[in-house]
């Protein structure tokens, strides 16, 4: 306690230093005067008395010094002096300071930008009550927490099973999809809705900010036509009016009464605005595509891990299999119940990318630090005399090292500040290339936690690059340094710098190989024939719900009339060369379903295929070639016999080696009247270059109702410019119909590979920066060596050494440094590139071509960086060189 008080007083003493010192000067003066008077009284002469007083005091200056040290905190005072000295030195060498600050700024900026992504996504605090207790469950069917059919009866047994586990407090299901929502203003808007179980909000632990959630029996038919809405929709649709509670909204033509408004931070599932407890209600069916796969969510009881919940679910599943109430055969490991924390589940699509990029920026920081360390080493070597003098005058090694570190920390902090500026720009740039997966998260920002991170890595970087030069400075042997101009210490510094540059090369090599592999992946994917065009095509979707589009007996004239009307309007838009409509285009993100299709002409063959509905112009507009028979025509209507077009691979499976034209098929739901095949189209990779083609069979839209369509327009110009014409065309037919997913096919393809594009973009920038830094680093080392050896080279040339030989010796040394670095980088790549394995396409993580290309590039870069300073060395004038020093 007393110590702390004294410490505080000393801290204050530091601030009021001058006053304390002045006070003491008076005290000391009065002391000496009294002592002198005593001496005179004892018979001494005034001069002698004064002298004696000072002797007994032990010297006035020494006393003042001892007093000063006690008055303040000497180490803090030293720090202040070191700081002032460091700042002055940095101001005096702007070249070093600017290079170091920019180098560190770039690297710290990259780290800050990536960390702000990590912070916003991987470290996000979910807006749930104790989110660590919420898990998703896959394959829960055998344990009772699942379903194998779309039926409301599943809900009752699910809810019954949910209460029977020791580790699980509550369980629910949910599924989300786009819906047309009408708030009562006449026209619908396209929103996302989630169909959930009654316990959905309880499992998440979310309480409505207004109104109520769902009661536990409100997921039963007849009670389930209620909804809670997002804060966002409450504000945009109801002007934040509490009277929104009790109002009725329409979703896909079904009516729901609003009972609650959720808090603003509740955004799960991402971008959903309407939640209804209608899961598995066949009467509502908010979903559009066929397959219906809700996700199971559970809230564990307190202190139960994912492993504990998983163990209980697995035991239950094994038990029910044993009793024969479930599938009899033992399922594969990945078909057993799998329990995943919700945070991990939400970030699974992007976690690996973010970790990969975090590693990349850490590499970049290592390169930057070692580069700055190299520069600082050269400075230290140049200041050896100064250190030696200070050591000779009594400075302790600790003080010399501390002073160097203070200087490094200043540079690092300035680099950190520059880094924050860079990070703002970098984040904006990265966000332009953001992967689609990022849209589910809040926009990353540089907030306080990110700034704390930045400051921490800046300090760590300062320590890291300051350590080597500080150690070398403290190591100066005064006698040695004062005698010789250059000595073994500066040579040791130069050797250290070469090792550093080699290491930098190794790291940059890894980054460049990574970027190279992603680049090759991108090129490989561009080469994959998709089976449809992506250039010059605009697409948009429309979903038809409610009156008058309710389908009766499989065909509603209103639906085909709408479709025909829109196609007609679109065809009249200037610049449009072809139009078409299809139920689900390639690169669509909606769920799909495969149905068994059989040859109905006596053949036994059966295959899975996805049913589609298309207009007569669709194949032409989308660039899908008709390879046998014909496409649809306007004659394929209600009055004429039913027809179907199949993809090549489906035809090959059903009628191998035979022509399918004229053959009838059979399937569930859509094949009344056994439609006959009139044409074969080529297969297409609907999931993009990475996915295989799936079998499809197409009906003409006039013969088979479908409630949602994607229209496509083909043009020779820029398809994006047709957007407003497309909206007008739909409005001309039905002004209350919302248009959604309005984008070019190119956009759809880019979205499909957005994660790869993001990784490639970010990694390329980091790799390019790293190469630039290595280039600067190597150039610095060679220039420094040339300067150091000017005398020696001068003597050599005077003695008849060939200038070419001098040049070659420098190039050879750089080549050796580079090769050593590359060997290191190659070894590291073999390990690190495995991280990229899942992102790669058509290229192995150890692709020799990429490695060799990167290796050659580095040699080239190294030779370029060496050539300029080496030529300077080779053109040294011996006479001038010998005159220096």
């Amino acid at each position, binding site marked *: 306690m*007393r*110590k702390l*008080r*004294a410490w505080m*007083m*000393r801290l204050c*003493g530091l601030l009021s230093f001058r006053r304390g010192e002045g*006070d*003491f000067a*008076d*005290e*000391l003066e*009065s*002391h000496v*005067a*009294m*002592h002198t*008077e*005593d001496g005179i009284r004892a018979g001494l002469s005034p001069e002698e008395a004064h002298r004696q007083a000072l002797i*007994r*005091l*032990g*010297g006035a200056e*020494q*006393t003042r010094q*001892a*007093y000063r*040290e*006690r*008055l303040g905190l000497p180490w803090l005072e030293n720090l202040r002096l070191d700081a002032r000295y460091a700042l002055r030195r940095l101001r005096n060498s702007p070249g070093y300071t600017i290079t170091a600050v920019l180098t560190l700024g770039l690297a710290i900026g990259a780290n800050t930008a990536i960390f702000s992504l990590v912070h916003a996504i991987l470290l996000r605090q979910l807006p749930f009550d104790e989110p660590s207790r919420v898990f998703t469950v896959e394959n829960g069917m055998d344990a009772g927490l699942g379903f194998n059919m779309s039926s409301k009866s599943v809900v009752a047994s699910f809810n019954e099973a949910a209460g029977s586990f020791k580790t699980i407090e509550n369980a629910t299901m949910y599924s989300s999809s786009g819906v047309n929502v009408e708030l009562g203003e006449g026209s619908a808007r396209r929103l996302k809705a989630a169909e959930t179980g009654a316990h959905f909000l309880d499992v998440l632990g979310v309480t409505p900010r207004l109104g109520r959630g769902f009661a536990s029996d409100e997921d039963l038919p007849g009670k389930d036509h209620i909804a809670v809405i997002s804060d966002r929709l409450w504000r945009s649709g109801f002007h934040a009016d509490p009277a929104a509670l009790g109002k009725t909204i329409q979703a896909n033509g079904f009516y729901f009464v609003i009972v609650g408004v959720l808090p603003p931070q509740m955004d799960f599932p991402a971008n959903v605005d309407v939640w209804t407890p209608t899961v598995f209600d066949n009467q509502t069916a908010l979903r559009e595509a066929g397959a219906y796969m809700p996700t199971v969510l559970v809230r564990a009881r307190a202190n139960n891990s994912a492993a504990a919940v998983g163990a209980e679910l697995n035991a239950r599943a094994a038990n029910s299999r044993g009793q024969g109430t479930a599938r009899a055969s033992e399922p594969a490991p990945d078909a057993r119940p799998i329990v995943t924390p919700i945070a991990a589940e939400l970030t699974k699509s992007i976690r690996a990318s973010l970790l990969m990029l975090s590693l990349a920026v850490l590499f970049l920081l290592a390169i930057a630090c070692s580069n700055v360390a190299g520069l600082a080493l050269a400075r230290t070597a140049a200041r050896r005399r100064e250190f030696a003098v200070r050591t000779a005058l009594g400075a302790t090694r600790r003080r010399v090292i501390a002073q160097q570190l203070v200087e490094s920390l200043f540079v690092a902090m300035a680099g950190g500040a520059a880094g924050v500026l860079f990070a703002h720009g970098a984040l904006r740039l990265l966000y332009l290339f953001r992967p689609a997966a990022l849209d589910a998260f809040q926009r990353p920002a540089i907030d306080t936690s990110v700034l704390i991170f930045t400051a921490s890595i800046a300090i760590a970087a300062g320590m890291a690059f300051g350590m080597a030069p500080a150690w070398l400075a403290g190591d100066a042997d005064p006698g040695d340094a004062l005698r010789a101009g250059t000595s073994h210490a500066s040579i040791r510094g130069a050797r250290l710098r070469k090792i550093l540059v080699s290491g930098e090369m190794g790291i940059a090599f890894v980054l460049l190989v990574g970027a190279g592999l992603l680049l090759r992946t991108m090129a490989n994917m561009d080469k994959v024939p998709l089976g449809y065009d992506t250039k010059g095509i605009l697409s948009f979707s429309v979903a038809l719900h409610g009156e008058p589009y309710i389908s009766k007996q499989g065909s509603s004239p209103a639906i085909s009339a709408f479709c025909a009307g829109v196609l007609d309007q679109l065809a009249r838009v200037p610049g449009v060369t072809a139009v078409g409509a299809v139920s689900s285009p390639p690169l669509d993100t909606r769920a799909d379903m495969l149905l068994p299709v059989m040859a109905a002409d006596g053949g036994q063959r059966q295959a899975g295929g996805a049913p589609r509905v298309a207009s007569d112009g669709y194949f032409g507009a989308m660039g899908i070639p008709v390879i046998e028979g014909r496409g649809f025509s306007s004659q394929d209507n209600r009055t004429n016999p039913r027809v179907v077009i199949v993809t090549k691979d489906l035809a090959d499976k059903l009628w191998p080696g035979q022509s399918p034209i004229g053959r009838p098929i059979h399937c569930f739901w859509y094949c009344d009247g056994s439609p006959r095949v009139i044409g074969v189209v080529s297969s297409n990779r609907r999931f993009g270059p990475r996915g295989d083609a799936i079998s499809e069979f197409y009906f003409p839209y006039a013969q088979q109702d479908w409630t949602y369509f994607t229209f496509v327009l083909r043009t020779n110009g820029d398809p994006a410019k047709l957007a407003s014409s497309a909206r007008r065309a739909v409005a001309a037919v039905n002004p209350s119909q919302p248009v959604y997913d309005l984008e070019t096919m190119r956009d759809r393809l880019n979205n499909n590979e957005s994660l790869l594009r993001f990784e490639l973009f970010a990694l390329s920038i980091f790799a390019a920066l790293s190469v630039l830094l290595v280039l600067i680093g190597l150039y610095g080392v060679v220039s420094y060596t040339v300067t150091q050896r000017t005398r020696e080279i001068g003597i050599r040339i005077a003695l008849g050494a060939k200038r070419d030989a001098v040049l070659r010796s420098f190039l050879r040394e750089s080549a050796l440094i580079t090769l050593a670095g590359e060997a290191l980088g190659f070894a590291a790549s073999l390990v690190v590139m495995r991280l990229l394995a899942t992102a790669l396409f058509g290229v192995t993580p150890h692709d020799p071509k990429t490695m060799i290309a990167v290796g050659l590039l580095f040699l080239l870069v190294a030779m370029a960086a060496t050539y300029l300073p080496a030529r300077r060395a080779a053109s040294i004038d011996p006479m001038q060189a010998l005159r220096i020093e």
Partner: protein
Amino acid sequence: MGGKTDVWQGTLALMTLKTLETMGPQHGYGLARRIEQTSGDQLQLNYGTLYPALLKLEQEGYIRSRWGTSENKRRAKFYELTKAGERQVKKAAAEWEQATEILARFLTPAEEA
């Protein structure tokens, strides 16, 4: 033990506090002389070391200082004990007595032998 000895580490504070306790408020020079007198001129006090020691005691809150006028009508800084200082004198004195007593037990038989 013929010649004058230096002040042992750590004892100057206690001497200062004890002197202030018995003499009341005192300036630095007076304190120094008084300590030497009390030691029977056995101690050779380096006056310069007294002031940092006084400053330390003041920072720790055992003494306080104010400017006043000496018996010779000279401006001088006077030091006096605080309440905490009075407690500290008793505590430190007790500790020292105990320490010297223990040490004496080691030394006495050695002298007999």
